[in-house]
């Protein structure tokens, strides 16, 4: 993950109602909750500002109706934002003419949909070749390209099947294949696995991780499933009623929730797996064990057993083997059992 910004969003607003733009201007471009409510506007996205870095997986997460789908559609201008700025590789998408937009979508963007959105009258091969077909690429070229992709997404031998003849998981593989056909720079996935049953979902998540390890795309991934977010994300943005309430790594969200809502969300997550020693270590004081020391980057799950086997507290070192603090057994126990103690 580098720190080159792929997409930069500034103050994106999306309001639904009779005259959103006029209403927005009238309220000094920052309408209050009361104003929005009293004039019966529906705020899908409110003041979203964030960057997507090249090569990262940014997961936007929230419950249904929180505005996450609308936000991602603002990034590709499937939905016209009421206000704001979206820069893609330095191009201002919201000012771009129709023609530029079509070019960008044809070559630089790919999107996967929750309910697959396959074209029912086309075979697997034709569905995957579709984005190439609309570019006017000749049949031999596009079909050989599509065959490569069929191999990548694991649908060998199904080239001539129609979507109707495939299982849900297979259909989504076609959806994924179609979105990859143009070798996009940025890949949007809108709840791609939510319509699948749990077992298939897990399989597809692993498949997704495998694909990303080959492709290394910049990804904006939407989900309402926090476990999925943790499993896949580099960074997670949590949305609530159209607002991004917190954006950070899974560990930051858990160890330092910005609001009660985020805390509520992250409560049932097994901390031991996600938190590192650093997040619960304390400054060195008193006696520590001489038999064991742990690194600050280690996950709690990894060191828990060894630490608890000791009688006393443990030293913590950074990667340069400098002592940076200590880990108290009591605190470790509290962290591991935090979920159950609250209930």
């Amino acid at each position: 993950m580098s720190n080159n910004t792929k997409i930069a969003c500034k103050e994106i607003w999306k309001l639904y109602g009779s005259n959103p733009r006029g209403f927005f201007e009238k309220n000094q471009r920052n309408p209050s909750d009361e104003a929005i409510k009293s004039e019966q506007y529906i705020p899908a996205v409110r003041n979203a500002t964030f960057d997507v870095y090249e090569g990262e997986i940014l997961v936007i997460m929230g419950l249904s109706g929180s505005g996450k789908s609308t936000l991602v559609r603002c990034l590709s201008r499937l939905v016209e934002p009421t206000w704001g700025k979206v820069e893609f590789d330095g191009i201002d998408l919201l000012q771009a003419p129709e023609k530029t937009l079509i070019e960008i979508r044809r070559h630089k963007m790919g999107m996967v949909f929750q309910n697959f959105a396959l074209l029912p009258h086309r075979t697997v091969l034709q569905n995957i070749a579709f984005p190439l077909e609309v570019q006017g690429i000749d049949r031999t070229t596009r079909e050989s390209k599509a065959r490569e992709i069929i191999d990548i997404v694991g649908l060998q031998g199904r080239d001539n099947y129609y979507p109707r003849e495939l299982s849900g998981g297979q259909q989504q593989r076609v959806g994924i294949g179609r979105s990859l056909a143009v070798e996009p720079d940025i890949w949007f996935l809108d709840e791609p696995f939510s319509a699948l049953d749990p077992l298939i979902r897990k399989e597809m998540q692993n498949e997704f991780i495998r694909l990303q390890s080959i492709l290394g795309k910049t990804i904006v991934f939407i989900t309402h499933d926090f476990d999925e977010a943790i499993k896949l994300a580099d960074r997670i943005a949590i949305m609530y009623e159209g607002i991004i309430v917190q954006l950070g790594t899974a560990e930051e969200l858990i160890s330092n929730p910005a609001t009660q809502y985020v805390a509520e969300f992250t409560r049932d997550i097994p901390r031991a797996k996600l938190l590192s020693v650093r997040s619960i270590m304390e400054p060195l004081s008193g006696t520590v064990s001489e038999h064991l020391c742990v690194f600050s980057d280690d996950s709690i799950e990894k060191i828990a057993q060894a630490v608890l086997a000791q009688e006393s507290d443990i030293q913590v070192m950074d990667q340069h083997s400098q002592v940076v603090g200590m880990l108290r057994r009591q605190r470790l126990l509290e962290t591991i059992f935090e979920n159950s103690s609250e209930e």
Partner: protein
Amino acid sequence: MRLNRALLVLAPFSLLIIFKSWLPGWAVTPPKSCLGGCADINGMIPFVDWVNAAIKFLRKYEFFDAFTFRDITRSISGMIDSLLHFTEGLLHEGFADFNIGAIPWIALVGAAAIYGWYLRGWKLALLGSSCFLYLALFSKRGIWELSMQTLSAIAVSAPIAGLIGVLVGILAAKRKTAERIIWPILNVLQSLPHFSYLIIVAIFFGVGSKAGVIATIIFAFPPMARLTLVGLQNIRSEVIEAGIMSGCSRMQMLFKVELPSARNELMLGVNQIIMQCLAMVVIASFIGQSGLGHDLLTRLQRLAIGQALEVGIAVVFIAIALDRFSQAIANKQPTHLPEGPFWKRRPHLTTFIGFVATILVLSPIVPFIAKFPEHLTISTSVFWDGIVDYITLHFYGPLANFRDALLVYFLIPFRSAITGIPLIAIIDLGACLGWKMGGWRLALTVSLFVFFIAASGYWVRAMITLYMVLVSLMICAVFGIPIGIWASRREWSTRLMQNICDTFQTFPSFIYLLPVVMLFQISDVSAIFAIIIYASIPIVRYTIFGLRNVPQEIIEAAVTSGCTQNQVLWKVRLPVAFPEIILGLNQTLMFGLFMVMIAGFIGTVDLSQEIFRALTFNDGGKGLVIGLCVSFIGLTADRLLVAWSDRQKQEYGLG
């Protein structure tokens, strides 16, 4: 609360009826002179004259001083004419100039069989081939030629109507303003009686097969337009988004994403177009469309029932075959082809090619391939005539008594009651109901509809039409709902009844006149019976649909609460199905209205008689205005009943 609401509507209505004698004359029956006091005009407002003036103006009008409206109509009918020549050449006349014969009968039988086998299997193959076989076998009186004329008219009109429908549908789907204009026009067009189309078309295009085809096209395109619009609007937004994200241009979007995704609705539209075309082609015989309809008409006019029945059966056969084939095409989902050589991948096409080759080789050698051997053809009309004679001989007395009793004790009193309702009471009832069901807008719409009818000068006849429709509606409900309830109880009876409804619904409405004329000769009673048979189909169908679609959980909840079978029916299933049953009544009423207009052919004194007069005298204004009266009766009822059903559904939270 409920009672109060009903009272609010019924009280003024009944008061107005009771104190009818104190009302001023214009409030009871609309005055016959026009508002300006001018003479010799039928209605308050001379709609008829306005339309006729417009027609006259149009016929004379010169566009850009270059060509007249008549030139346009001429070129259109010329085009249709040459298309007709082509299809008739293919199907039965052959092309003498090129020394090519028509497609031999055996080729049609075989092609239907292979196509049916490909679409759905041997049953459809059997149906298709036996249909053509029947036409060939019974061709003693020329049924084969007549059928081919009818089929060639359908072959010309259906594709054109489909194309127009799709274009109009796309326009409505893409432009909001266009939708707002097109939708109500489609509503009126779909409720206009067949004959209004015929009259207008006859004025601009004359008579004969080409005029019939043009009338058929205009009559048949609205359902396709409607279904195209619905299909395009129902595409999941995700699919559209996938198209945008793939970088489709507007045209690519329409042709590669939207139209293919709306396939199901479009194919349903194809089925409807074909059936509408058949129905209209039969009726278009009134303006000289040649084919089965024409034959049927002349034989009915001469009361040659046996021969008419033979032709009627051919029509029915064609109707069923066309319906089942177009449905099979609609339901045929694409499947991946098996691997292997051509004949293995496409076995049906291979068979077809082989079959055609065989015919080409054999036809010079074996004569009966080109023409069905005449000595083998048969006619059953003598047999049918025998049955008719038998019925007249043995049942004439009882049937006549039944008919007279029905007339004296039920129909005539009912008719006087309906026609006696003062104009103002009807307007009041419509407005109140409209207001209750859908607010002031509906009230206004309904009042305007009623006012148009009152002002047009056809009020009394419209009331007679209303009486015929209402009587039929009542009888249909009394028989149809119990039949629906019975059928919905078991799996097999549901399927049986649905099959019967599906089959009967495909028959062109004109066919229903045959059996009733056979039984009751010509009277109100025959007309009403024809309406009842035809219009019972939707109420049965909707009752079954409604009862069958009650959520299983609700029924299970009722059973576990200890309901008996009857309690489940009366306390759970019927109330939940009620909104659907209302929709069924609505459809029944619309069907009834269509049939009333056709029944005018066997003699009634309502609007349909007027419309037949208009047809005879080529009176376009009259034809259109009466058509609009009928259409507005239908639309009034439609608006009110659909609003009622929607309200019920909302109250139950059923969507």
